[in-house]
């Protein structure tokens, strides 16, 4: 499901976020975050609730305005970036059911709009939708209403919608939240196939869980600052639980000085 990478930007980082700051209202949420993701990497963004990890990925896709810092995607400054079909985005799932029913196929098809700008679905688009559904094992549910799905199935649909884009970069915000173990395994398998095919992945996680063997690097945020950037810390799943505000000792090679808290 890969489009061939453009040779000119082969060695450019896929995501380059430097010194990013952002605020929600008057509260600073990102306070100088550096995040670089290279082609083929699988990077997990970890941290407690409120650490800014969700804001960081939303900033990467331009959904949170940066008050300072620089962002470029595929070597292009974000303000000039238009190649949206290279990105598959899975936003955080909201539990609110939509007002009007929609089938699984309709939702997944909307991912193809990145490639068919006039909204006309051709045979190739339909085939990509079916492939994406099969990847997350939802092909039997194409005509079901998304409102009738379980949380885990709904999450699989949102991932299929991003995979239908046939992206080079997959960005996922808490894809495992509220997903039971069986569904997590299905998602881990789908992701494994994508990674094997060379897709770059940036994902926000609460704990590594079944994805652990896939993660090449972990970036841990705390209070809007990067406190760890390196191999995924062992048992980070435990430590990344909400309220468990602790960073693994071997981690902080490039970190901000640790501020004194009850648990650090």
């Amino acid at each position, binding site marked *: 499901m890969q489009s061939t990478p453009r040779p000119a930007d082969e060695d450019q980082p896929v995501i380059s976020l430097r010194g990013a700051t952002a605020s929600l209202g008057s509260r600073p949420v990102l306070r100088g975050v550096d995040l670089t993701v290279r082609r083929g990497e699988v990077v997990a963004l970890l941290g407690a609730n409120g650490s800014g990890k969700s804001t960081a990925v939303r900033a990467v896709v331009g959904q949170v305005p940066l008050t300072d810092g620089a962002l470029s995607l595929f070597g292009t400054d974000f303000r000039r970036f238009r190649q949206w079909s290279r990105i598959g985005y899975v936003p955080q799932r909201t539990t609110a059911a939509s007002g009007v029913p929609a089938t699984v196929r309709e939702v997944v098809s909307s991912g193809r*709009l990145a490639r068919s700008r006039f909204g006309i679905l051709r045979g190739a688009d339909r085939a990509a939708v079916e492939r994406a559904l099969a990847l997350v094992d939802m092909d039997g549910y194409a005509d079901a209403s998304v409102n009738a799905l379980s949380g885990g199935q709904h999450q699989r649909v949102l991932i299929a919608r991003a995979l239908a884009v046939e992206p080079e970069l997959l960005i996922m915000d808490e894809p495992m939240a509220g997903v039971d173990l069986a569904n997590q395994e299905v998602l881990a398998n789908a992701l494994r196939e994508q990674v094997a095919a060379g897709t770059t992945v940036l994902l926000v996680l609460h704990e590594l869980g079944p994805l652990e063997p896939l993660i090449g690097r972990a970036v841990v945020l705390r209070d809007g600052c990067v406190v760890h950037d390196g191999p995924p810390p062992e048992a980070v799943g435990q430590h990344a639980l909400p309220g468990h505000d602790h960073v693994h000792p071997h981690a902080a090679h490039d970190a901000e000085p640790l501020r004194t808290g009850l648990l650090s």
Partner: protein
Amino acid sequence: MELLHFAFMQRALLAAALVGITAPAIGTYLVQRRQAVMGDGIGHVAMTGVALGFLLNTSPVWMATLVAVVGAVGMELIRSRGKTSGDIALAMLFYGGLAGGVMIINLSPGGSTANLSSYLFGSITTVSAEDITAVVILAAFVIAVTLGLRRQLFAISQDEEFARVTGLPVRALNLLMAVTAAVTVTVAMRIVGLLLVSAMMVIPVAAAQRVTRGFAATLSLAMGIGVVVSLSGTAVTYYIDAPSGATIVLLAIAVFVATTALSTPLARRRAKAARAAEEVCTRDDVKV
């Protein structure tokens, strides 16, 4: 079928059919975005346009279109800011529009609030030849947008953030949707009336989604229901002396009640089928 012999009834039925198609078409997106009351707000604002038409002695339909479009764009800008004070701003816009309309109509020569009644609740005898031209042009625009851009509009209504990341021009599409809603209000104004137009955007959709599973199915069924109730409501109004809007909306509610009654056994059957497909072992002794 004697009602078809009269030119005014032919015009009324054509206008009614176009209302039946356009109002549920844009309404499906508005309901999906939980903006069902937007049509109501635009209807209030359009009152100022109708009254201005009287005052300036120009066509109330075109004047209402102009003012409604300005009002709808204003509403969309307030909505996209997403401030909590947005509710207050919207209320100012709605009731300012209504009060402005009543004020202006009383200032215009020989005008009184009584002139507004047919615009508020609809009337089949007042659709002039000039009106019908305007209604056909405006309805063609609404149909072109709501069906031609259905995938894009579906995407922004379903998940605005995802739509932005696919590179869709979300802000422009939001404005286009607001303008289309405003145009629909003036299409529906003559037959359904400004105070009841929102009902035709919402009720056929609510009725349709009781028995559908998909968006395209809901959109087409809502349009089908819309056409049936607005044509039959207009025909009924020929025989009884009542505002056409009231008749049409009551018929739409009757359809909603019918599909709701139908949906309960349907939903139960679907849930059962879904469970059977899902589970390896099913228990028959558990009643849901």
